[in-house]
């Protein structure tokens, strides 16, 4: 860690990253004291997050360029162009210490953002407006998969923002039809090519195609191992619930560890550990309980899942076997030619990535994923969190309910804010589950 006296502190966003780096490091050290191989695997995630923050801090302090990018606009470019990057849209995920999430949410509303706006968008706008996001050399915008994201980017470019002079490019996701047609992929591939040229123009760093190939070859390994891991999650009893894999695999492969060989090792260790558990027939739920297998069809409420998911496991034997971000439908990228590399990156960003793949396309895409998850993972109950901000998902409510009916699985609609546990308080969430399990004959 850099000595405090030598640290430049003129960018409040960088200062926030320093704090988060230290907090993740400390968290890892604290949890690391627990002698459990699965916990230790999770501890390594905190180290990856701290490392990603450190890279930005280093670049800032050494006067080197760094960029903001996103998980679905070719994050591989950062490593390939020697440009440390962070995801603009990570405030509600990594928020620690400085303020509670509740405070940030309340202050964003007080600032003039309505409470019907997605909390993730609100909190990120708040962070931009309060200068709590490091000002990068250049930024790659992410204007899908929902209406909130383009608005966040417009606030970034607004005259009131400290980002107003940051060169910004937003790869346009014009193609709508979700089945990965080649015309759509080529369109987006061209947008990504322009993005690389834009980054060179504004940072001076050139794209080395050999290096990009190398990064993609490594990230392909992440996706292959993630797929292996997900296959293991099909086992009955389920080896892991909400606390392992799932969303963390996504954040490692697409955000904090893109193309990092250490992350490949992490994925391999995850697979090995899970294989052992499956071979031993060990599951998450207490022995003697009949397993109820849940599919959480949205983002996992990371900030408060711990307040009710362990209870679900212990009380009802209900385990989250799969969630939307943990669901894997990636294909590896063919790195045999430049054209295939760009196509592969475009396909990965638009049509493979969870949440984007479902939300940018037609409801048919949602239904197909639902069918596959329910069948592959032997799901009993599809949980529809009904996050208040995901208007596009909320618009498929009836379609999904009917799809579940056709599949012969239960559809349980909660209606919550996956970042704000005051929207539907935990007690109410638990009560809803209790009543649902009773009515469905599980209790």
């Amino acid at each position, binding site marked *: 860690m850099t000595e405090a006296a030598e640290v430049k502190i003129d960018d409040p966003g960088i200062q926030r990253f320093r704090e988060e780096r230290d907090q993740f490091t400390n968290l890892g050290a604290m949890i690391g004291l627990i002698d459990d191989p699965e916990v230790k695997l999770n501890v390594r995630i905190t180290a990856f997050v701290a490392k990603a923050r450190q890279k930005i801090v280093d670049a800032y302090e050494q006067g080197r360029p760094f960029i903001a990018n996103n998980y679905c606009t070719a994050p591989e470019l950062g490593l390939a162009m020697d440009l440390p990057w962070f995801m603009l849209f990570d405030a509600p995920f990594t928020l620690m210490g400085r303020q509670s999430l509740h405070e940030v949410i309340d202050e964003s509303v007080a600032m003039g953002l309505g409470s019907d706006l997605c909390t993730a968008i609100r909190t990120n706008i708040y962070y931009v407006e309060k200068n709590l996001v490091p000002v990068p050399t250049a930024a790659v915008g992410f204007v899908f998969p929902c209406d*909130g994201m383009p*608005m*966040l980017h*417009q606030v970034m470019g607004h005259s009131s923002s400290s980002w107003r002079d940051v060169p910004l490019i937003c790869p346009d996701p*014009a193609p709508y039809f979700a089945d990965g047609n080649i015309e759509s992929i080529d369109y987006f591939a061209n947008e990504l090519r322009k993005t690389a040229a834009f980054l060179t123009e504004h940072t001076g760093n050139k794209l080395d195609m050999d290096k990009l190939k190398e990064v993609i070859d490594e990230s392909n390994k992440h996706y292959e191992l993630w797929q292996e891991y997900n296959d293991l999650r099909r086992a009955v009893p389920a080896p892991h619930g909400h606390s392992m894999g799932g969303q963390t695999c996504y954040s490692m492969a697409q955000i904090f560890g893109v193309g990092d060989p250490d992350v490949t090792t992490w994925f391999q260790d995850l697979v090995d550990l899970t294989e052992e558990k499956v071979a031993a027939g060990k599951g998450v739920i207490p022995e003697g309980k009949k397993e109820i297998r849940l599919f959480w069809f949205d983002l996992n409420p990371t900030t408060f899942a711990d307040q009710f998911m362990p209870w679900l496991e212990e009380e009802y034997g209900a385990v989250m076997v799969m969630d939307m971000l943990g669901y894997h439908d990636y294909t590896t990228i063919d790195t045999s030619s430049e054209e295939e590399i760009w196509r592969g990156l475009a396909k990965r960003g638009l049509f493979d990535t969870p949440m984007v793949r479902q939300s940018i396309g037609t409801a048919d895409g949602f239904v197909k994923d639902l069918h596959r998850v329910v069948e592959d993972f032997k799901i009993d109950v599809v949980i529809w969190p009904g996050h208040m901000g995901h*208007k596009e998902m909320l*618009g498929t409510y009836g379609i999904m309910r009917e799809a579940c009916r056709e599949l012969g699985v239960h559809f349980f609609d909660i209606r919550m804010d996956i970042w704000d546990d005051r929207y539907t308080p935990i007690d109410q969430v638990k009560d809803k589950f209790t009543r649902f399990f009773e009515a469905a004959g599980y209790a």
Partner: protein
Amino acid sequence: MNTPIKSEAFSIMTQATAGLENPAIDEWKAQGGKTIGYFCSMLPEELFLAGGLLPFRMRATGSEGTDGGDSYFTNNNCTFVRHCFSVALDGGYDFLDGVVVINSCDQIRRLYDNWLHKDISPFVHMVALPRQSGPDQVEWYTGEFHRLRKSIEEHFKVEITDKGLREAIAVMNETRRLQREVYELRKRERPPITGAETMAIMVAGTAMPKVRYNELLRELLTELETRELETTYRARIMVTGGILDDPTWMEAVEEVGGLVVTDGTCFGGRLMHCDVDEDIVDPMEALSQYYLADRPSCPRMIDTQVKRKNYTVDLAREFNCDGIIGEKMMFCDMWQVEQFMMTMDLKEEEIPFLKLEREYITSGTGQLKTRVQAFIETMGK
């Protein structure tokens, strides 16, 4: 209280606005004409006209509830889509021979999914709208229009020719020119028409044959030239925001003294701010350029924030407005954030601004009137 506009033209227009199917559409259909519904002002009416179809801008006027829609959407979806889908499930759009949808917002694109799911219309087509308005996007959008053209030709067994498109562009440009003349009259110190009346005229333009509508507009303009509102208003107001097709909402604003003299809404001023360039050789490209890049956009287009701000400020000054009311539907993320930025922009420009949220169907205007009254008070009017 103002004396009502006397001309028959206005009466026909208000008939077209008051409900969905109207006498002008009935007459069109009685002659064997086909009608096509379309969501959003970013879709090219000219293409429908050139295909011999009567375009009808989708709305849910007269909807009495969202019960049907609530089975497929949730209470965090906007009431426009919920009302529209309820009307659809009740057969309220059966007079349409098809519907064209666009991914203008998350909620509308899910309306498309539900429309297909419940097999509402015999023809449903989705147009993919880019998020930006540069040359690459104009090219993409031209391609989308070609796909739409082909789809209409195949389904309705019609041929859409370039000549037909150019004629349709000329008709629509004439509509826009006439509508601008109406708006121009509102710059007067004592305008000849209220905001609510203007809205009725504008909505009518999206629900009847265009050539007939242009005739009616000409007739109406003759009367308006010499008309003057009798009521004295306290403040000149501009309204800006998303979908608003209900003149009674404007009436409520005007009843407490805020005369709406212009607007930047997608059933109003944004429809006719400029024309399709008739000098562009390829009419499809001309349409794409107009709908995507030239006309004022809504916040959906991410590269237009400064342009939108300038459009709003310029209009407010041009029409000598005392203040601006920003209206938005509940659960509309785009207008939510737009109003957030607009609050800062208009403060800088020293233009009073009132943010209002609304449900699609205007009911119980008491609270609205109170807020507008207070707004006018704060302006010292």
